[in-house]
């Protein structure tokens, strides 16, 4: 019998108990996987955004619009390659107000966001069509939009000059992200033509919500941000400029203490798990004290007995943990499909990594005490049942 076979045979010497323990470990890791992916959503640091852009918003808050006359002024600031402006449109499509629709200048969008990939003829169509709009791939897929469709939208902020809240746009392009993470970002987004918006809207046409500044050199981020804010200090339109990454982080942080609660649950789950598995292992070793004594009599060293017990816990935690994480991956895919792109519960590589770390920690913590106990065993006492 090989060592592996011996360990597995030992593990299943009480079938019911091992199965039940295994199942509770599986459940705990299903939960661990799902919660950890949720945790990552809340504590995300969007590194993929990079540091080539700054976001300038009103100092009061980003819902306070800034005047368009600032565009050429910012274009002229040294270190700024191009400025893009965008106005939140408050789009509602079929009662879904979670569409991130912005009115932009197509040319400037193209220059400032090279991460959006779209055939050049679609960019041209967007530039050339006043009532044009472009949509992110995932958003378009969600609603089955195709290039050439007329998309009826409502704005919950801006009525048209004739008082109507209904707007219609021509879908002239669908953009992709340049990599997987940017592709994720296409889930909620769409852009419309600012020139058309400014002309047709009843009010707010001369304003933009935020400005996005593409820098010539990422190292200049801090100095450019200071120059911009300095320029508008003490004016009616004071600004606050930060890197695009900080802007996004701030956005997520607004969700506030929810991430904290998720962390508390994770802790509770793990603690409970620790106790269940730890207890089973302790019990299992207690019952097999005479067996271990026999092993030692046969000539197995103290350390190899310790190894056997430890290997059992590792096997139990690893089998259960990996099964649980796999289940979580499947469930997570199902949940994010059902909940839509706004709740990206993805049990991905990062979650698996922390899951594997958890498995190692767990098996060491619960295995070490029983293993040491088996190691310290005196043959005579154990065989005599003392």
């Amino acid at each position, binding site marked *: 019998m090989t060592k592996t076979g011996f360990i597995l045979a030992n593990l299943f010497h009480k079938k019911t108990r091992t199965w039940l323990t295994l199942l509770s470990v599986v459940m705990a890791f299903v939960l661990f996987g799902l919660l950890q992916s949720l945790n990552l959503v809340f504590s995300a640091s969007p590194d993929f955004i990079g540091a080539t852009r700054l976001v300038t918003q009103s100092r009061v*808050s980003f819902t306070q619009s800034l005047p368009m006359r600032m565009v050429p002024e910012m274009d002229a600031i040294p270190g700024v390659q191009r400025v893009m402006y965008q106005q939140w449109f408050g789009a509602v499509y079929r009662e879904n107000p979670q569409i991130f629709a912005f009115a932009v200048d197509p040319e400037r969008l193209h220059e400032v966001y090279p991460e959006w990939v779209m055939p050049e003829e679609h960019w041209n169509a967007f530039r050339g069509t006043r009532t044009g709009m472009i949509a992110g791939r995932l958003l378009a897929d969600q609603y089955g939009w195709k290039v050439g469709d007329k998309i009826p939208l409502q704005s919950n902020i801006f009525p048209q000059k004739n008082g109507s809240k209904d707007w219609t746009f021509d879908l002239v392009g669908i953009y992709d992200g340049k990599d997987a993470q940017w592709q994720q970002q296409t889930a909620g987004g769409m852009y419309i033509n600012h020139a058309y918006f400014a002309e047709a809207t009843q009010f707010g046409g001369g304003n933009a919500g935020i400005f996005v500044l593409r820098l010539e050199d990422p190292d200049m981020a801090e100095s450019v941000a200071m120059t911009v804010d300095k320029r508008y200090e003490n004016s009616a339109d004071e600004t606050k400029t930060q890197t695009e990454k900080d802007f996004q982080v701030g956005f997520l942080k*607004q969700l506030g203490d929810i991430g904290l609660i998720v962390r508390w649950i994770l802790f509770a789950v793990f603690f409970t798990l620790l*106790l269940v598995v730890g207890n089973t292992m302790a019990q299992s070793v207690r019952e097999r004290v005479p067996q271990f004594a026999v092993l030692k009599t046969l000539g197995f060293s103290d350390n190899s007995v310790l190894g056997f017990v430890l290997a059992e816990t590792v096997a139990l935690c690893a089998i259960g943990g990996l099964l649980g994480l796999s289940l979580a991956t499947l469930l997570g895919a199902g949940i994010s499909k059902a909940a839509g792109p706004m709740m990206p519960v993805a049990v991905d590589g990062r979650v698996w990594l922390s899951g594997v770390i958890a498995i190692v920690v767990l098996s060491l913590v619960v295995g070490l005490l029983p293993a040491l106990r088996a190691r310290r065993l005196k043959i005579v006492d154990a065989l005599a049942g003392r």
Partner: protein
Amino acid sequence: MFRQIFAITGLNLRSIPQRWGPSLVIVIGLAGVVAVFTALLAMAQGFQATLQDAGRTDNAIVLRGGSGAELNSGFGGDSADIIKLGPGIRKGSDGKPLASGEIIVITELLKKGETINAANVTLRGVEPASFELRPQLKIIEGRRFEPGLREIIVGAGVARLFDGAGVGETLSMRGSDWTVVGIFEAGDANDSEMWADAGTAQSTFNRGNGFSAVRVGLESPESLETLKAALAADPRLTVEVLQEQAYYSAQTGQFRATISVLAGVVTLIMALGAIFAALNTMYAAVATRTREIATLRAIGFGATPVLVSVMVEAVVLAFVGGVAGAFIAWAMFDNLSVSTLGQSFTQVVFAFQVSLPLVLSGLAIAMVIGFIGGLLPAVRAARMQVTTALRTQ
């Protein structure tokens, strides 16, 4: 029969202290389930109560048609004046219609302990009638703002969770300084806001004479329809009229649904884990007492009392765990003040509410889990072959 049940059950329960280790698994497992369940739902409940209490059935909010929320809404002062003269609006203490134009500006404050990322907080420009429309709102420190001055009063929730919002401090907005002169408390969502004089806010934030919304007091809850019909018939206006309480309640739906789903999934998975753990423990408990049970059966005790005694033990342990879990949730989370992003894109400060019904349903879940976890081992104990069992080591 009952005497037998009592005898064996008593024997079982009294012997629990001798095998604390395994029993503790059930207790702590269930404590975990109940604590998580209670805490999550206490959060959902606290959020809902905070918003619901902010609205009254005899107040109404008038928004621009299709805007859905005060933040998106807006109209000129002339429209506001027409609205205030609508039918069905009750008279205030000054004899004029009880109605106030309010403007919403979102400002940024730093949460305590935060240095970079600011959070959105509502600044509401209000007219004198706004106070009368919210009788629950009391100044608890300092005084009200003086109309025309750049003075501001802040809600208790904001003062508690955010920096720079204490009495005497100044907030800088659009190149001007605002002094905090008082703190108010309403015990609901209003506590998440800051209030200033509407006129001063209009001029500071370049809003002309426009308002975001008009809030009115109704003669009776039924007057809502009267006002709605009259304003809809007026060709000068495109507005929607919403009952204040319905307006706030509508904002709780999504959050509550999200948290409820989260609580459901987490509780279900944890409960399954706990059931397996409980099964394990009870099987072990039965196994270690094999000879004891067999002896009892041999001297004439029936199978049912044995079965019942194992079940009772499981349920009692589960109950103890449930109580411990509910206590943990209460001690750690009850009245804990937190904030999250509300639907109007600003922070809503609310407190966890661990209520009795919540605790009771947590305990019910614990006992169901204990029942399921005890059932199979109990059946095994009852079915035991007396002769073989007596011979086991």
